[in-house]
């Protein structure tokens, strides 16, 4: 990559086919990883309805999410009464362990003083002291999904985590960013536990968004990290901070508890996974289990088998920043060329991206930049543009409403990296092996430039076909 074109944002006034989702939605997802929690949007009821539908379509699960139902009058006069009424109603009806409040554009434009409202609520409602309360400022008009997720996790750390005089030697914290699916968190738990360590994930979506079968109907999240576990995070030996957008929460946690943090910008890829396993071995003092050694072998083998199909492939990627970083870095590791990396918001991690063009934009920008790409990687909203271009789409991120098991895909660790390698590699492989569509492919020599040719570009017969 000789020249990297970077521009901070598109000059367009009309965002077309947006990639960005709002901050409160990210906060809601973070809250949903807490056991018996009910997220509450401080705004008009539509804010909640849209977010709810999006999460339901992605996870195919019931999503608890409530609203302070602000109308015109309360918006102008101040929303404290609505907030208090909502909190009281929720406690009375659903008795959750925690209520996570996220502000919206409506309450932030008015400039509601959330810190003051928190104190006022606690003073006026001493009978509700047992219910944990966390407030996060998440205006719709700044930042995006990832920022909201980060803000909620930071707010939880600030409000609930306490320093501990004692230390539990096998307990470690994991601040799991929103680029980790519930499936990813489950995979990390498996890896960490295999070293004899017991992790506390904040948040823990693997317990709440993985298809639980309840024995009774609940209006709160079912499963997740418990409030008590969060309070005990100060007793851990270390904290793994996963993703740039968890850094602020990670710093807050370290500052509060003196538990040392270890930062991971990504966990997808061989080297990234090596770094994690090395740390886990050090922290636990245990040898690396045979199972994980086999997984590493298997990933190395997959890279050897698969690299033929990734080399010089032109790929456009549009995802939330930290996932964008993980995926584009992995693709670069495999020898593919990222022609465009499109992020919904401006963040620090964009500086580190390896791509021909890095930009803050939307799906219409992807459509422009991916004209001669071999693959687009984005959420399900990329489907219209990909279809118009005739470029295959690999779905990642959120929302993924036209695939089953969207929340359970795994792309971290050796096994997860191998999954992703196979999923993307198979798209290239099937395009190349699709002999029926190119009856002339096996006549004449193989085209070696491999770029938008009609020919059978299987990279020197490595695909195992009899061509050449």
């Amino acid at each position, binding site marked *: 990559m000789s020249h990297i074109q970077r521009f901070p944002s598109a000059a367009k*006034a009309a*965002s077309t086919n*947006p990639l960005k989702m709002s901050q409160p939605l990210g906060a809601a997802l973070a809250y949903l990883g807490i056991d018996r929690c009910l997220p509450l949007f401080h*705004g008009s*009821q539509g804010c909640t309805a849209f977010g709810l539908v999006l999460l339901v379509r992605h996870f195919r699960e019931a999503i608890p999410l409530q609203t302070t139902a602000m109308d015109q009058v309360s918006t102008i006069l101040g929303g404290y009464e609505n907030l208090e009424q*909502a909190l*009281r109603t929720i406690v009375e009806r659903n008795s959750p362990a925690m209520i996570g409040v996220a502000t919206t554009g409506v309450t932030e434009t008015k400039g509601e003083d959330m810190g003051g409202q928190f104190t006022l609520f606690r003073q006026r409602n001493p009978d509700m002291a047992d219910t944990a309360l966390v407030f996060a400022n998440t205006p719709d008009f700044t930042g995006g999904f990832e920022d909201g997720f980060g803000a909620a996790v930071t707010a939880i750390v600030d409000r609930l985590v306490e320093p501990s005089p004692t230390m539990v030697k096998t307990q470690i914290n994991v601040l799991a960013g929103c680029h980790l699916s519930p499936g990813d968190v489950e995979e990390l738990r498996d890896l960490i536990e295999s070293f004899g360590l017991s992790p506390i994930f904040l948040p823990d979506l693997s317990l709440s968004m993985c298809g639980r079968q309840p024995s009774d*109907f609940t209006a709160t999240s079912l499963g997740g990290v418990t409030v008590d576990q969060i309070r005990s995070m100060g007793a851990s030996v270390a904290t793994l901070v996963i993703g740039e957008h968890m850094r602020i929460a990670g710093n807050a946690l370290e500052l509060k508890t003196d538990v040392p943090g270890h930062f991971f910008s990504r966990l997808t890829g061989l080297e990234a996974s090596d770094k994690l396993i090395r740390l886990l071995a050090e922290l636990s003092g245990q040898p690396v289990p045979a199972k994980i050694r086999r997984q590493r072998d298997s990933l190395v083998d997959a890279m050897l088998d698969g690299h033929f199909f990734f080399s010089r492939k032109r790929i456009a990627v549009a995802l939330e920043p930290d996932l964008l970083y993980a995926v584009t870095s992995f693709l670069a590791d495999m020898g593919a060329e990222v022609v465009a990396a499109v992020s919904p918001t401006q963040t620090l991690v964009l500086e580190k991206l390896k791509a021909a063009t890095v930009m803050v934009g939307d799906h219409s920008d992807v459509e422009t930049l991916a004209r001669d790409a071999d693959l687009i990687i984005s959420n399900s909203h990329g489907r219209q543009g990909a279809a118009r271009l005739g470029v295959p789409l690999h779905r990642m991120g959120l929302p993924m409403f036209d695939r089953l098991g969207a929340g359970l895909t795994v792309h971290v660790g050796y096994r997860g990296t191998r999954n992703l390698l196979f999923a993307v590699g198979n798209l290239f492989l099937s395009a190349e092996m699709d002999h029926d569509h190119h009856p002339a492919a096996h006549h004449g020599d193989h085209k070696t430039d491999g770029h938008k040719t009609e020919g059978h570009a299987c990279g020197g017969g490595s695909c195992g076909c009899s061509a050449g």
Partner: protein
Amino acid sequence: MLQDKIQDVFNEPGCATNQSKSAKDKKKGCTKSLKPGAAAGGCAYDGAMIVLQPIADAAHLVHGPIACLGNAWDNRGTKSSGSQLYRTGFTTDLSELDVINGGEKKLFRAIKEIIQQYDPPAVFVYQTCVPAMTGDDIAAVCKFATQKLGKPVIPVDAPGFVGSKNLGNKLAGEALLDHVIGTVEPEYTTPTDVCIIGEYNLAGELWLVKPLLDEIGIRLLSCISGDGRYNQVAQAHRARVTMMVCSQALVNVGRKMEERYGIPYFEGSFYGVSDMSDTLRTMTRMLVERGADKSLIDRAEGVIAREESRVWRRLEPYKPRFDGKRVLLFTGGVKSWSMVSALEGAGLTILGTSTKKSTKEDKERIKKMKGDEFHQWDDLKPRDIYKMLATSEADIMMSGGRSQFISLKAKVPWLDINQERHHAYAGYDGIVNLCEEIDKTLSNPIWRQVRLPAPWDTPAAAPLLAAE
């Protein structure tokens, strides 16, 4: 302005419910006030989008921060036979600076970009809460843009916090009355031109009805707004008869079209055999009353006789399969009601329904039809439904997507009958589709399997490993 508009639609003489209210209650409007912490459902902006977005060749631009569109685009099941522009999401994606400095200029630039790039016949601009608070005058911007750019640019003033979805429906109707209907003259008119209001072509339902109209000789001049085209909607004032499908939501449009253009309207439904036949009969009778050829009635009767005998014949095979199966209807609207007689005709037993959204008249009607023993639940909580289903008081639940997990988590079959559904249930063929869907899910073999206890919960009858 907006307040006058809202009072105007609340004071709707065409609405029977409204007429039975006192002057004070009328002022309060037709929506129950929302309870913070226990509210569900969309906002007025959501309702406006539902009505207008099916106009497929127009651009729909949302003036607001990212939450209003970014969390919610390309998520409706309304189909178009031509232009797909309605599926492109446009938003001004207001930032913090736009909130401070005002977003009017950005809005104008966005409209200009859209017109230059996509050349739609019109642009609908949707107001949302945040710019409504900061005072962006979208009506003025739209007027200016219309003059400057030479295309109709229509302001839809229905910010979320003014009220419910239903109010948004009505305000969208007002936008059509003020800016669209009557602005284009059809090339020619016929004595059988009709306008259908409140049909959104979900899952292609209109296409199950339109061939029958064609066969009878009725011309669908204008549909508001399923599979709609801007110019067709703008011609609606030349219809001879208006039919209102979702009766209460857009009653203001039907009544005002009668007032302004002398077009009589009737309320009808495409759901259920007898309702469908009634609709065809009323439509033809009213057309003949307004001067269409009398033979229209005979042709309609011919079609009705043929279709009815065909549909009952096709429902016959389901009877033995549906014998004794009990249905729980969980939906407020009247439209599902018209399906009931058809479902009973096919052998199903309807246990009861929720009447949360139904009017007094609806309830009386249901009572008359079904007698006192039939359950009408006013405020059925999700937990109660779950209990009813888990104790197998019903064999299948039919409801909207929001409540699907109540049923599925109770391991009871569920069928989507609201706006996200994937199958068309309108017309005569639609009822057969509905029975086929019910039969498919009821007879699916998973239900026995998923209810099996886990191996660790049941001692095996005979040990698998025959230990001594």
